[in-house]
């Protein structure tokens, strides 16, 4: 791996990421993640939408940004494939729900983060920042479309996951953890500016340029939400009534 020459292998953080890359090297049915060729601190991942939910059949691709203090600080996840649950191109971070927003633990890993993401997709968006409350039908349509989605770095995502290899069974800790994990969007734009995460500005370069267009195009193709449709109907009916009234005035005076 060319990465090896580039990083200080003695740094525990680098060693850890190398190990995680080895552990996750084989795609499983549910997830696959791998570091970029030229940057061990940015990974791309693909996860399968959880079965028996509106995300079933969907494949969702995104980036994982690892802070230089990883694993002392949590990874940030950015979804790139439109999914109707999370905004795309927006950082979401991993935390335990409720009153302990910063309780990421160094003994969790990228695998934990991906499992949490999958587990969290079907939960209610409940108006939190970075969340989207699309209808079930809209999400199903996005799930179908996601099969054809392409990443500018990784290409087509449809072949990224294995069709047979199941992932390692959950450990005791992991399953208890997933029951109360929460993903929360990063709410604070100014922290990026004042340098809490100085690394990111460098790392944004690769992907972001043409994704908004792709997203827009897809959004245009989605049928509007039910609410919009209702309003449209009402307006048409009003117009019709007015026209009828006017016509009656003219002809049946």
């Amino acid at each position: 791996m060319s990465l090896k020459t580039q990083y200080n292998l003695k740094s525990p953080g680098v060693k850890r990421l190398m190990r995680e890359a080895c552990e996750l090297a084989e795609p499983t049915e549910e997830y696959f993640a791998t570091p970029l060729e030229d940057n061990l601190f940015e990974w791309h991942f693909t996860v399968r939408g959880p079965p028996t939910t509106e995300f079933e059949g969907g494949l969702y691709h995104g980036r994982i940004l690892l802070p230089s203090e990883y694993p002392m600080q949590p990874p940030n996840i950015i979804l790139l494939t439109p999914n109707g649950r999370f905004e795309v191109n927006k950082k979401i971070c991993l935390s335990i729900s409720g009153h302990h927003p910063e309780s990421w633990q160094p003994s969790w890993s990228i695998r934990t983060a991906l499992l949490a993401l999958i587990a969290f997709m079907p939960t209610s968006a409940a108006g939190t920042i970075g969340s989207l409350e699309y209808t079930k039908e809209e999400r199903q349509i996005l799930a179908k479309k996601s099969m054809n989605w392409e990443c500018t770095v990784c290409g087509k995502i449809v072949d990224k996951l294995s069709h047979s290899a199941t992932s390692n069974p959950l450990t005791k800790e992991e399953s208890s953890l997933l029951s109360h994990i929460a993903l929360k969007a990063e709410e604070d734009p100014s922290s990026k500016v004042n340098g809490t995460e100085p690394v990111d500005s460098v790392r944004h370069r690769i992907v972001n340029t043409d994704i908004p267009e792709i997203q827009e195009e897809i959004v245009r193709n989605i049928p509007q939400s039910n609410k919009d449709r209702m309003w449209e109907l009402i307006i048409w009916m009003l117009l019709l009534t007015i026209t009828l009234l006017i016509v009656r005035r003219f002809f049946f005076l």
Partner: protein
Amino acid sequence: MGDESENDPAIGTGNQDELIMQQQRQIEREISETTALVGDLEPIVSLNNEYSNDNVYLEKIKDLSSKYKHIRRTRPDGNCFFRAFTYAMIEKMLDNANELEQFFKLIETSKADLLTLGFPEFTVDDFYETFMDVLKRVRDIKGVNDAKKELHSLFNEQGYSDYMVVYLRLLTSGHLQRDQEFYSCFIEGGRTVSDFCHQEVEPMYKESDHIHIMAACAALNTGVRVVYMDRGSSKSNIEHDLPEGTTPSVHLLYRPGHYDILYL
């Protein structure tokens, strides 16, 4: 990059938590720029500079200096107890090959215990190996002074230093969970021991209380003396040996919110 319009609502609703966290990070940054993770040995009287106009403290520093010669400051980042404790213990054992060997064995068997408790092997392995690596590196140096120098430089490398802290946090959490029945009476707020561990012990930067210290000492089979220095009315500082009745191998100075290492 930042979509201002999108983020405005967050500011509009006055997200105080976010602002506080931001300010806290700013403070943390300033601290990390000015204080070493583990500082050099300094005379006790160097504390006077921090309290030049405070007679209560000056009196207590006098009392402290009658018992202790030196202080080694640690960075106040919430990990200070774990960092100070681990550092002081290993440093002391470098003078005693026997003790170091015993400690080595204790750590060697500790990983299996953590795995039985259900900690994820993949990551525990990572912290365990780094902890052992540091122990081996200082053990294999012939001269005690050189070994101590190496220890000092490893503990000031964020990567190694934080990994040592994480492993001791895991050991502490493991001990608390193994001895749940006993520790559950010390936990406030109706939390279970394992909730407490997930929220207050395992995450980095979470400050340590009595209960952390007791469990950490028990896990490493040692004792610590904590000297409490605050604005209380007593003339001398209050000392606590944890666990009670043990001969302390490490002496720590506690000032509200922070631990430093003391030397006799």
